[in-house]
């Protein structure tokens, strides 16, 4: 019997068929181009491992030439963006918990008096150390500039103060994560990342699967309301999502010793909102795609910016403004702030509200689109 021989004609026929099919599947083709483009832009422009211009608050009890001069020196490093200037420390605490500022710089009342007396007054630099990567370079910069920051002001009788260790006693206080443990930042964040990945994917696939198998025609011939289909499709995944979250939380506590300082109730509440937002996004995608393959491609297309622009992998505040703008529209961004706030900073409902309402807005917009797009017909 003749052994089957390799045939170039057959191979050419096979290749040709694959090319034709690829051409027909416009979405796959678009993704083939779209995903690398997106990665190029995200990694090339949006992401910054040396984040500058980070939000900081100043508690300036002493408004003197020296203190102004010192703050100017900090600003000149490029790492700080002073978004608040107050006189009493208490006034900025909530900004800290809510994650609106990463630094609080406190200049004490008798700063200039102690300074000229050569008493080395203390300046307190409080740092939100939740994300050690985001703040590392900024802290290093402060440590570098502080000793010589006031050199130009140290003239005449003050000349001697220039000598080491400098006229200022810089004290750095790392809040929330004093030991700079990266897991403190990533593990709570993982909850959001895992939910985003799985939930968007499974719901995006849900309708496409019925379409591919042909069951959609029968389903649509029955007297169901769109909202019944939508809620019915996503409910089982809410349960699944809670199981996922429980696993990650237990792992966070037992394996990585991540503290859970805040209220678990508050966390559950925020979770349900976040889960529903993701499911609604998945459902909307499922009204666009025709096949399961397209669904998973679309889910990837959504996941990529979510993970890169949300502040999970790279510091949010270090991104260019346009990237932050996109980031604000992603549910993961807000959820990260919520989950880190609750777990690491014992944030209360009022602290996380600024991140809750954006989720609600996203949900409203997405569900409106979903219900508008979803039609129980085959055309």
């Amino acid at each position, binding site marked *: 019997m003749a052994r089957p021989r390799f045939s170039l004609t057959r191979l050419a026929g096979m290749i040709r068929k694959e090319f034709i099919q690829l051409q027909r599947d416009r979405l796959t083709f678009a993704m083939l181009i779209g995903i690398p483009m997106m990665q190029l832009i995200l990694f090339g422009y949006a992401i910054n491992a040396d984040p500058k211009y980070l939000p900081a608050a100043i508690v300036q009890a002493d408004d003197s030439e020296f203190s102004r001069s010192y703050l100017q020196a900090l600003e000149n490093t490029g790492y700080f963006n002073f978004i608040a200037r107050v006189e009493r420390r208490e006034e900025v605490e909530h900004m800290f918990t809510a994650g609106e500022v990463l630094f609080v710089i406190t200049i004490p009342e008798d700063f200039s008096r102690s300074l000229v007396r050569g008493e080395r007054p203390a300046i307190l630099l409080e740092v939100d150390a939740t994300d050690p990567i985001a703040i590392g370079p900024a802290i290093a910069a402060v440590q570098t500039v502080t000793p010589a920051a006031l050199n130009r002001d140290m003239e005449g009788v003050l000349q001697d103060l220039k000598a080491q260790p400098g006229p200022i006693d810089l004290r750095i206080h790392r809040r929330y994560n004093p030991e700079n443990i990266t897991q403190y930042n990533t593990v709570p964040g993982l909850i959001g990342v895992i939910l985003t990945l799985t939930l968007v994917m499974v719901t995006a696939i849900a309708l496409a699967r019925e379409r591919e*198998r042909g069951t*959609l025609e*029968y389903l649509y*011939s029955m007297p169901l309301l769109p909202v019944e289909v939508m809620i019915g499709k996503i409910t089982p995944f809410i349960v699944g999502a809670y199981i996922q979250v429980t696993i990650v939380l237990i792992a966070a506590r037992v394996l990585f010793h991540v503290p859970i300082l805040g209220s678990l109730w508050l966390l559950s509440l925020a979770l349900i909102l976040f889960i529903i937002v993701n499911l609604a996004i998945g459902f909307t995608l499922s009204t666009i795609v025709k096949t399961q393959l397209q669904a998973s491609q679309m889910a990837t297309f959504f996941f990529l910016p979510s993970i890169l622009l949300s502040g999970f992998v790279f510091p949010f505040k270090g991104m260019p403004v346009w990237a932050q703008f996109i980031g604000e529209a992603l549910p993961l961004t807000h959820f990260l702030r919520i989950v880190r706030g609750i777990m690491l900073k014992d944030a209360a409902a009022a602290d996380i509200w600024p991140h809750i309402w954006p989720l609600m807005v996203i949900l409203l917009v997405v569900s409106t689109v979903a219900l508008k797009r979803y039609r*129980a017909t085959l*055309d």
Partner: protein
Amino acid sequence: MTGEFVIDIRNLTKRFGELVAVDHVALKVRRGEVFGFLGPNGSGKTTTIRMICGLLTPDEGEGTCLGYDVLTQSAEIQRRIGYMTQKFSLYEDLSIQENLLFIARMYQMKDPAALVEDTLDRLALTARRRQLAGNLSGGWKQRLALGACMLHEPDLLLLDEPTAGVDPKARRDFWDQIHLLATSGITVLVSTHYMDEAERCHRLAYLANGRLLATGTGPELIEQSGLATWRLAGSGVEAVSDQLKAMPGVETVTAFGTRLHISGADHAALEKTIASLRGRADLTMEQVQPGLEDVFIHFLSDAKEAA
């Protein structure tokens, strides 16, 4: 229910891009009627049925189904019809019983469990209730699908090729059941490619290229066609078959085993052609009543000439 027509559609049209899949179709189906929907592949049967039950939005036209507006009251219509899709569309990864229960709940039936029990019994599937629907053989899938679409006791059944791939015995049982349902006042619109099934319908509609070519009872359609049919038998049949096709007055030559059916609308020309064969010892010929199949093929070739 208003009016005597369960389905009353006018000018129903559906386009897919350039293609006019359904072209100004008008149908009237009476209550309690078994209405046959015939036509070659791609003629628009499925598309028409989908528009009637609100699965596709018509581009043109209007009409009512069970007294409800086809364009605006799909929800009301869907509650009262049973639609059996051409392609098996129950959940293959659910068991037979789970599928039926799901459907019973979708229609908000009073006692889903009992209803499903009855249906399983009627379909003789009680013993296999836990089997996945996907593992059923082709014919059994059809039977299950049929049982499923009648579960909620609809007033109108839309059956899209319900007996494709079903064995003759089951097919006969199925049609007996259809007639039983019709007697009890349920209306049935059924698409089929089988002539014996067409003959069991009260009235028929014949569709080709999206256009309705004829409607009426079987005898009416035969009458309308104006067709004459001759039957040739004998050992010489095979020899003359090819040459007949080219002869005047002959539209179709169809072989049924050792017999030939020769049909044409031009009676005189056809008779002359047949006469020319007379006297051959190996052939016998007689004029017969045209069958529905002859009639449909005639309609189709007429439509092609017109196009």
